[in-house]
């Protein structure tokens, strides 16, 4: 199926595909990924009509399929969303955005958290 000498290339392509699919670097990886966040509904907090709507973003990045770094955790996204406020996020939406360039040689994978902030 593959000419002689192609097998290592096919294996390498398989590894790179796996690396890009999982946002991992083959040589070095230090990333944080979201796992779970049971957010509150409006009836579960002291919500008010004038509660501000906020958005926070936290990202992991990878380059050359070899290195991956960043903090795309819920904790970081919430910290970014709240800023200096002390509050509880409710009516929350969590999304993922992926930006990949040049066949995934550079990729950015972000957790975007938005919602309204109630007083604790």
């Amino acid at each position, binding site marked *: 199926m593959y000419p002689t000498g192609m097998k290592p290339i096919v294996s390498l392509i*398989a*590894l790179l595909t796996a690396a890009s699919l*999982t*946002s991992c670097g083959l040589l070095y*990886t230090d990333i*944080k990924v979201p796992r*779970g966040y049971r957010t*509150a509904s409006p009836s*579960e907090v002291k919500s008010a009509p004038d509660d501000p709507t906020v958005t926070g973003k936290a990202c992991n990045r990878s380059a050359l399929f070899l290195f991956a770094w960043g903090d795309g955790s819920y904790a970081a996204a919430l910290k970014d969303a709240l800023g200096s406020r002390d509050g509880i996020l409710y009516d929350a939406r969590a999304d993922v955005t992926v930006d990949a360039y040049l066949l995934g040689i550079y990729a950015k994978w972000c957790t975007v958290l938005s919602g309204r902030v109630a007083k604790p």
Partner: protein
Amino acid sequence: MVHGVERKGRQTMTAALALLLALAAVPGVWARGENDGDEASPAMIPSGGIMLFYQSKGPLSFVTMTPKDRPSGVRELGTVKGVSCQHGLSIPLAAELRATSVSGGYGNGSFAKAVGQIKKDRPETAGLYDVRTDLRVFSLLGIYRKLCTEVTARAFAAS
């Protein structure tokens, strides 16, 4: 002709196997957390090749409290954080891409240990709410791996 078909099939299988091995080699980083439903996915340190030793604990499910579940009259402790980790080693037996490796995993990356760490740091903690759970994935050359469970929450103490 028959041999040609067999060889082609074998090579396709080899390529598919290489992809599967590659996928198994890198730590799983998909956000597959727990919900209010009855499905849960564990997050265990991956181990491939010839596994010599594996003794690990990982997070499975943690249905946490929301602010409404917090008892009344309690004292706020602010934001707290607990971390627990699993470690893994995977040593290739030859210097090639598809070399077999010997591997092992150990550690306690459970929710129980992460929450236990919070209670150790803040002994007055009576409960947690508004809990965020994240995974930290660390890998060096695919040889050493660390998978940590990070629990960040607001804590309260009995008044």
